[in-house]
């Protein structure tokens, strides 16, 4: 067992009747990491988070969070985590301040009211803190929801699509704050649809139909895939497809003998989005073949 792991998931299955939401998922998330969960709708991202926060019981397998089992030691686990759901779960007729105070009351630490004001300031709602939530836009509700998850200095933060409906400037400051939190030792597990955001993560899990397709740093995921290299020699263009181009490109150039006529080298790297889509399509094809057999 990894000593520095905040979260350990082993052979996790979660079935809802005949529907297999998670199939044999294995993960180990290091303390102080931003760990991203990437996948299409229905991939199992939210189910995995709900298993980890103890809101749903796994069908099979084991879970450990900071040495506690979230299913049997819910009380201990819940004092250590913060959870921001995909859809803000707030009382619309209460103010932002009242919502944050209510949801963070059981695990309050230090100067409670001062801390509430701090998180309200961080999410940029100081001027609207005493307005009822039903007057807020979707993005503002997301910010209240994030504030609720942050008040009690959680050791593990679960964020289910935290920046949906947030403007780019605030999104940038959120990610900066997440990074600051990880430097203080907080582990963050974040599910997202946005590929650009996935690049902020230290490690990325790609889920599709309950199966874990990859669990690697995002940069490594990109390097593993093919890059198209275009060598323009006078008016001729030669294209080469290479995997892991930082290693392959020098070899290619050596082979070509660094022809002085080569005046331009273009590299078309696959985007994270195309890498993920390719993995999902391959998995889908495999599932269809298995189904046909």
């Amino acid at each position, binding site marked *: 067992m990894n000593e520095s792991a905040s979260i350990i998931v082993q052979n996790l299955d979660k079935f809802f009747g005949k529907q297999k939401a998670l199939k044999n998922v294995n993960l180990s998330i290091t303390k102080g990491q931003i760990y991203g969960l990437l996948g299409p709708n229905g991939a199992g991202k939210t189910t995995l988070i709900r298993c980890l926060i103890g809101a749903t019981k796994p069908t099979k397998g084991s879970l450990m969070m900071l040495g506690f089992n979230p299913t049997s030691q819910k009380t201990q686990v819940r004092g250590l*985590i913060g959870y921001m759901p995909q859809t803000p779960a707030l009382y619309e007729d209460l103010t932002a301040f009242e919502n944050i105070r209510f949801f963070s*009351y059981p*695990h309050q630490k230090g100067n409670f009211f001062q801390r509430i004001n701090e998180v309200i300031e961080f999410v940029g709602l100081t001027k609207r803190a005493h307005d009822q939530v039903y007057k807020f836009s979707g993005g503002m509700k997301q910010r209240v929801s994030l504030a609720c998850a942050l008040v009690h200095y959680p050791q593990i933060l679960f964020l289910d699509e935290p920046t949906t409906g947030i403007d780019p400037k605030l999104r940038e400051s959120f990610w900066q704050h997440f990074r600051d939190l990880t430097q203080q030792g907080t582990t963050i597990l974040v599910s997202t649809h946005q590929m650009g955001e996935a690049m902020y993560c230290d490690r990325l899990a790609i889920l599709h139909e309950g199966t874990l397709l990859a669990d690697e740093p995002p940069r490594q995921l990109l390097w593993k895939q093919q890059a198209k290299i275009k060598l323009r020699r006078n008016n001729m263009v030669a294209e080469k497809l290479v995997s892991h181009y930082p290693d392959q490109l020098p070899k290619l150039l050596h082979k070509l003998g660094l022809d002085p006529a080569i005046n331009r080298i273009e590299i078309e790297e696959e985007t994270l989005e195309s890498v993920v889509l390719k993995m999902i399509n391959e998995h889908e094809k495999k599932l269809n073949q298995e189904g046909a057999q």
Partner: protein
Amino acid sequence: MKNILSRIGVVAARVLNQLHRDRRFVAISILFPLIIIYFIKLVFDVLAPPTFNISPYAVPYAAFIVHFITFILTAIVLVRERTAGTMAQMFVCGYQQIEIIIGYLLAYTVLATVQSLLVLLELNWLFDLGFSVAQFASMYLVMWLLAVISMAIGMLVSNFARNEGQVFPFIPLVILSVILSGIIVPVEKLPEWAQVMSYLTPLYYANEVLQELISDGSLLDNWQMFVILPIYGLIVVGLATISLREKD
């Protein structure tokens, strides 16, 4: 224990705060029973002969109206918590079942206290029932207990419903209790199986005590039936607490 009590207080304060802001909900909860009782008065005025003793019917009917409305409003409010995701969020944030149930019960008891009092005052005024202060206070206690039990039943039912629509199949059961309670037909005249079912409805015990009070008796004269009401309430609160779960 101190933590549990303080969290119960926080849940109750939050619900009261919401009630304070949701004037329409409070108005429906309080005015609706009063309007229905007024309609009952209009019907009795036309149908009942002048010498007819109205008390054995009017008081239990009013109790039933409080029972029904309190049940349905509590059940729907709690189901709404579930569909909005705030119930799940309360659990994740560290609130326990008992804290949620008792907190809600305390807050809604404030509403039930006002509701029962206004219903009884209106009844006394409209039908000119001329109850003594002791009779009135005893009837109020019975009606208040029934309202609290109705809230607990609403909470219990809400635990088995995933949306507001799933509460509606339970409504006929509550309406059936008016037949089973002995308000319309004496329980002894019901079929044997229905008599057994009568003992499961809180309205049966409330009606038994109310009839005793209407016929100039006191709570002590039928104390066995009266004592069953708080016991019934405690059992339902216990069941509501046990069955309140975070759903998959």
